[in-house]
């Protein structure tokens, strides 16, 4: 080798930019096996997303590697994500994370080693959440929200896993009563149906499947959607439930102005971070450049594939896969999240729910 190092780097960069089917990238995954760690049990939402990608991605990556999905369950994603974080940073091990796992890592939950600063998203998928009220709240319009009398009971599973719904309640300034001890959002829906819980937030697909029937029979009413936030900080309706007002829109209707203050800033961070990364495939950002380029090329080809689109439509229930620029935006939002707002979130979680974090 007579070429000097800078020259080589320019050359690699140039060829990468020039073509996706270049031999360097193809050679990298040729005959290799990519392992996608899914830190949740089989059959859940994150698992379904991870397996969708595992099934389709391999054939689109230059070099056609075998892609296998592997469930490494335990401790709410801690076990599997820690296992991933200790693996070789060679691009052969990827992680499927849920939005809430990402948030746990982002805030630095105790026991979790995953650090999003070391990672780069490969592909992601969004999912919204909708909050409903039980009929015993005794109001006829969502705009009467602030006038509810009686205990506003809210079921608590793992508080960090419900953060978007909690921050929304904080934003409204509602005095709610946390009811701990629920195993999952499914359990809270049951107690909601019995009227023991007055307020309940479900993912939009779960809301459509299991809360809408309650609304039809008059047991419940839709209050607000969490919705998304655009680049300018404005609320965007949930594409799977476009008729339901988002929480900031409802706030504006009630108070005549948009929300402000720390809770609103936290809401903007949390709504996108949790909901845009409902399923995220991560790779280490210091994995070899040719590996990351091959993965990107694979995802770009995959999302154009009809077979993938058909399969994805079934699983994503009204949402679009995020790839390319959308991923850059996720990464940018992560970097842009103000430190004081993250501190506010940590303090709120510690104060109200005794969740402990380890500062990074």
């Amino acid at each position: 080798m007579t070429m000097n190092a800078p020259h080589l780097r320019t050359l690699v960069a140039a060829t990468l930019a020039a073509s996706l089917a270049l031999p360097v990238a193809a050679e990298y995954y040729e005959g290799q096996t990519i392992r996608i760690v899914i830190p949740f049990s089989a059959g859940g939402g994150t698992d379904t997303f991870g397996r969708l990608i595992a099934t389709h991605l391999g054939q689109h990556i230059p070099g056609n590697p075998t892609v296998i999905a592997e469930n490494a369950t335990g401790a709410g994603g801690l076990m599997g994500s820690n296992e991933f974080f200790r693996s070789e940073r060679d691009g052969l091990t990827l992680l499927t994370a849920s939005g809430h796992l990402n948030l746990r890592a982002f805030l630095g939950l105790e026991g979790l080693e995953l650090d999003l600063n070391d990672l780069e998203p490969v592909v992601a998928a969004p999912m919204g959440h909708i909050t409903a009220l039980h009929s015993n709240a005794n109001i006829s319009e969502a705009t009467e929200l602030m006038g509810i009398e009686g205990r506003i009971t809210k079921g608590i599973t793992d508080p960090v896993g419900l953060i978007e719904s909690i921050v929304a309640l904080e934003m409204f300034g509602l005095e709610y009563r946390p009811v701990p001890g629920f195993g999952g959002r499914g359990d809270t829906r049951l107690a909601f149906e019995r009227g023991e819980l007055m307020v309940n937030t479900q993912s939009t697909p779960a809301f459509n499947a299991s809360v809408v029937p309650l609304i039809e029979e008059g047991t419940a009413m839709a209050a607000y959607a969490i919705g998304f936030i655009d680049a300018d900080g404005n609320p965007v309706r949930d594409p799977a439930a476009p008729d339901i007002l988002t929480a900031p829109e409802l706030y504006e209707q009630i108070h005549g102005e948009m929300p402000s203050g720390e809770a609103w800033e936290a809401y903007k961070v949390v709504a996108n971070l949790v909901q845009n990364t409902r399923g995220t495939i991560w790779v280490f950002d210091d994995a070899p450049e040719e590996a990351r380029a091959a993965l990107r090329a694979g995802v770009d080809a995959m999302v154009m594939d009809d077979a993938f689109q058909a399969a994805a439509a079934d699983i994503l229930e009204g949402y679009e896969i995020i790839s390319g620029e959308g991923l850059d935006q996720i990464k940018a939002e992560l970097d842009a999240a103000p430190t004081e707002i993250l501190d506010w979130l940590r303090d709120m979680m510690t104060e109200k729910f005794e969740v402990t974090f380890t500062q990074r």
Partner: protein
Amino acid sequence: MWDSMIAGFMMLMDPFRMSMLMLGVAIGILVGILPGLGGLMGMALVLPFLFGMDPYAGIAILIGIAAAVPSADTFPSVLMGIPGSSGSQATVMDGYPMARKGEAARALGAAFSASMIGGVLGALALTALVPFARPIVLMFGAPELLMLTILGLSMVGVLSGNRPVLGIIAACVGLLLGMVGGAPAAPEYRWAYGVVYLFDGFSLVIVALGLFALPEIIDLLAKGGSIARRQPGLGTGWMDGVRDTLSNKWLVVRHSVIGVTVGAIPGMGSSIIDWLNYGYVVTRAKNKSQFGKGDVRGVIAPEAANNAREGGVLMPTLLFGVPGSSAMALFLGALLIFGIQPGPSLLRDDLDLVFVIIWSLAIANIFGTLICLMLSRPISRLTFVPFRYIAPVVLCIVILGAWQETRHLGDLLTLAAFGLLGWTMKRIGMPRPPLLVGFILSALVERYLWMSYSIYDWEWVTRPLVMVIAALCVVLVLGGTVMKARVARGAVERAATEGTRHAD
């Protein structure tokens, strides 16, 4: 409802699903025959293979196992005086003496026909519940569910046979072990000491495999020889047995009803229902002289009840998502794997599926008992295979089953630790079922207590249904102890808590 009943039947008639149901029955018969392995183990072993399977087929295979075990576990109870699973301990009392008198065929005939009728009645009871499911579910809030779990805990006395103190200690140890890991109502880890493996607590499957399967395997191996001693033969008189059941039809119905009712109380576990029914049939009988010496009624009552029980344990499982038994805790897990959320919404939105479960239960009971009856000669020959040939296979299955949980080294260490604990308990005569009940109900009691208090403050204590169940707890504790004392005076004493000691 009728539409769903027919739709469920048609769904199950799919050849693949039917063959999976039959596979479940076959597995159930096998694990039923092997001492120490019951429905829980059978389900735990197939669970890893169900991922990605058609949900109805997966459910069929699990229900097939659950339904066939209480029929097949009669073989070792009658033929060798060792209960095939915890649900047929009481069958030993009269079944084994009958076998020694050369009436094994009659005892088996009576047991299987009673099992079949009991199982079908259990499925019917479950069907009868469906129209009332929703109002019942809405009646049971967190305080009522809390009382249900306490009701389950108050059965520990009955579970402990004639060693109530040891039983209560075991239950407390179970409650403590159930607290390891993430707390159910606060974001903290208990007794995990920063070990991530312990964050989720111990897995039910591994605890059950360790407590029940390993000690049984060790002791059978240590004893050497086959599961059963060579015997004169089964004798004839199958039809006599069937006729015994038919002439005692009210006995069968009565004990099926008891089986369903007791089964519907969460955490009661299979190991008490047979004793409860045996105790009851003895106390109610006019002529008690033959009990313990080979009275066929002593076989019919527990066998009808333990098959009917499966209809009962499915009730809280499907209605509330509260597992009716430890095996049902696994079944619940399997439903979640298939993306099915148990609870009232299931009964409203997916009644077809509920009927697939009910039909599976009824059909598996009929086929399970028919297969046992018709193939009893070859099946009973299985019990003469030297255990050293069976043990390695069973041991592999047990270890694989445990390893499937998280595929972490901790799985194997936990299995070994609980195996040692179970074996020690067995040696010192400490009943093991109370430990499992405590372990399962530990998190539920804490959870529902927090919920009840957070939602209602102390008002929850005054809710009418709470008080009714509380009264029932008192009755059960007192009544159970009295009944036990009465039965214990009889021949039960030797075999009480763990029938296997009988064979030591």
